[in-house]
């Protein structure tokens, strides 16, 4: 049968074509000796990047790995390994869009180390760095893999928690605060420092086309509140209850399948009738 033969031909050509042409394309488009990758590779080496195994240096796969490595380096904070501000801003913009479309509750937490300047002034900047690294690890340890923990700069962090019901939001922010407070930080000289964080949080407005700037402002306001009310506190702005659950939707759409049999006069009866 004709179509079987044609299908086989397609199958064969699909199988063979890449194997035959791939090296030719790579050699034509990306002559690796022409690329100046010394700086990129030294940056990657510093960041602990390991070249992919079983891939020839200069091949397309190798180059892809280098590019992926550079993307990773440029989206991470060098000190803590957390997402940096660049990655955070891309992620929060995506989350605002998603929440507006899907209507899931999402929480933004901002955390700030209390009296951090005092740590730096008293114990030096190396100790300050150790404190930041320790807090970063606490934050990362307290959240789910789907959550994004970012260092926004200095002693300020942010966490985006998608699909986060209000009750969970309170639990997780308290968990973070307690974990940081209980975690001693070993600094040079054998000293153990104890630090605390203040945390502010706000839920994204569901079903609302808002902006990441507004969301951050609302979380920041709660952080100021936590600082003003004495630090080592969490303050969350609770969302209005605007989730439309699957159950509610199911009940709503029940209306569409059942035309009202008892409808009598149609439009134009001129009477203000139904008040359910």
């Amino acid at each position, binding site marked *: 049968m004709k179509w079987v033969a044609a299908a086989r031909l397609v199958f064969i050509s699909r199988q063979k074509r890449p194997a035959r042409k791939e090296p030719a394309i790579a050699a034509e488009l990306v002559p690796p000796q022409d690329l100046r990758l010394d700086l990129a590779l030294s940056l990657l080496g510093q960041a602990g990047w390991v070249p992919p195994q079983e891939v020839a240096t200069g091949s397309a796969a190798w180059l892809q790995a280098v590019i992926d490595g550079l993307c990773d380096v440029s989206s991470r904070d060098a000190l803590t390994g957390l997402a940096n501000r660049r990655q955070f801003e891309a992620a929060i913009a995506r989350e605002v869009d998603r929440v507006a479309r899907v209507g899931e509750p999402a929480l933004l937490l901002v955390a700030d180390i209390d009296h951090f300047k005092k740590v730096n002034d008293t114990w030096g900047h190396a100790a300050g760095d150790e404190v930041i690294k320790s807090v970063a690890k606490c934050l990362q340890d307290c959240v789910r893999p789907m959550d994004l923990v970012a260092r926004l700069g200095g002693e300020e962090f942010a966490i985006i928690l998608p699909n986060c019901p209000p009750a969970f939001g309170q639990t997780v922010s308290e968990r973070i605060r307690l974990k940081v407070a209980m975690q001693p930080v070993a600094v040079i000289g054998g000293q153990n420092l104890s630090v605390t964080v203040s945390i502010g949080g706000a839920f994204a407005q569901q*079903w*609302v086309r808002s902006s990441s700037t507004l969301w951050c402002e609302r979380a920041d306001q709660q952080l100021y509140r936590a600082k003003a009310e004495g630090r080592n506190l969490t303050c969350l702005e609770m969302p209005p209850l*605007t989730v439309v659950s699957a159950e*509610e939707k199911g009940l709503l759409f029940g209306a569409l399948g059942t035309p*009202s049999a008892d409808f009598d006069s*149609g*439009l134009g009866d001129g009477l*203000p009738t139904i008040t*359910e």
Partner: protein
Amino acid sequence: MMVTMSAPATANPTAPVRLARTVAITSGKGGVGKTFFSANLAAALSRQGLKVLVLDADLGLANLDVVLNLYPKITLHDVFTGKAELDEAILPAPGGFSVLLAGSGLVEYSRLTPEVRDQLVSIFEAVKPRFDVILIDTGAGISDVVLYAVSLAHEVIVVATPEPTSMTDAYATIKVLSAQQGREALHVVVNQVGRSGDGRTICHQLQQVVERFVQGPSGVPPKLTHLGDIPLDSSVREAVQKRQLLMELHPGSAAAQGVVQVATRLLARAQG
């Protein structure tokens, strides 16, 4: 911003100021015919001898101007920026009512800043004594600006169509208005109704789900009043394409009669 009026609202300070009945028109979902409905409702109310103003509060992406085929030189934007007086921005519309147009694409106002809030309030307060009814045509969605514009009005009409997405958004809107503004009574108008009676069924269904899942701040679920339906009608498309009011082009059409009925029921109901 200063809102200056050419003539004081009340010449005699001892006379009581009659303030306009204020109705916000919102929908959650865009594209349900909200602006079309606002304009034609204004025309229907004007025919009953009322002095009506439509305030275009769709500041981000307004299109009341497109519906009315009005392209004024002076808009709300100029009043906001101090380039024009409020009186210059209030224009007569084809249906015998007045409009205050936002001007399309004022992206800077799609965010609710304290300045936008103050400007909206002062404009609103300035026009209130001068009309019988003020309709606030809000933007799509449930953004901060939309919620704020709605909060200015005594009454709210939620416009929905029988589509599931529109019903969900209308329901979400009702929920937000109940939770954030403590609204205890809301009007519902169903547009593009294919079968007579569907609008009533939809409103009934909305009320059932609201009663089960929505408790306002005082623990009372909002009461929905079905103001009427606008039937699916080819004359609507014609009017929209010709950029004319349906009330002017085909006043006898089924859809126009639906709008007239909504106007009648709205007026029959006590304010608030």
